[in-house]
């Protein structure tokens, strides 16, 4: 069972990413979206990489670019259409906002 997690908030001022991390399991996919893009450089991301493969961490391309965020090479940048596809490739969705 894979869950799609949409993280819309920065972990520098909220608990959303931490709580997401608490319920994350190995096949899940994590999407950094909206202010969630600021988490690209948060220490929690290292913990998350121990739970899910880095291939399962993705960022909405224009949301990161708009915020001037550098996206490391190993993190895939995706479009909204990709996000729609992922919605149906996973079993359920949790929005962390």
């Amino acid at each position, binding site marked *: *069972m894979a869950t799609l997690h949409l993280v819309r908030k920065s972990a520098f001022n909220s608990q959303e990413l931490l709580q997401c991390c608490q*319920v994350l399991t190995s096949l899940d996919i994590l999407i950094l979206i909206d202010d969630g893009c600021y988490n690209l450089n948060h220490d929690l991301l290292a913990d998350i990489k121990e739970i899910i493969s880095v291939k399962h961490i993705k960022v909405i391309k224009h949301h990161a670019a708009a915020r001037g965020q550098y996206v490391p090479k190993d993190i895939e940048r995706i479009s909204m259409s990709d996000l729609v596809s992922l919605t149906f490739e996973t079993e*359920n969705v*949790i929005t962390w906002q």
Partner: protein
Amino acid sequence: MANKVLAILNSKAPYSSTFGKDSLDIALIFGSYEQGVSLFFQGEGVFQLIPNQDGQQLSMKDYLKTFSAFEFYDIEDIYVCLESLQERKLSNAFHIEKVNILPAKEFAAKLKQHDCILRF
């Protein structure tokens, strides 16, 4: 079509926002339509379950009292995250009965069994 089971993940303390009440309204509607609904409490959401609260002192309609009606709505699957309790130095005393305390891993496993998950 088979009925879907909804999970509601409660993450906010009860009084400073309307999230707890908004979430409760959804739970009760699903219950009254005989649709499966499970309630999960994580983070600040666990404060919705602690005893000795009295929202009336804050001029609040005390919606937490309605939690005791869950049984009449066939809402029986209630889970609270152990780690969230521990971080807040909370015991296993709640103002309703039959609350299941689960470590994060099991809490996650239960949550993920649901077709639809809303977070408030």
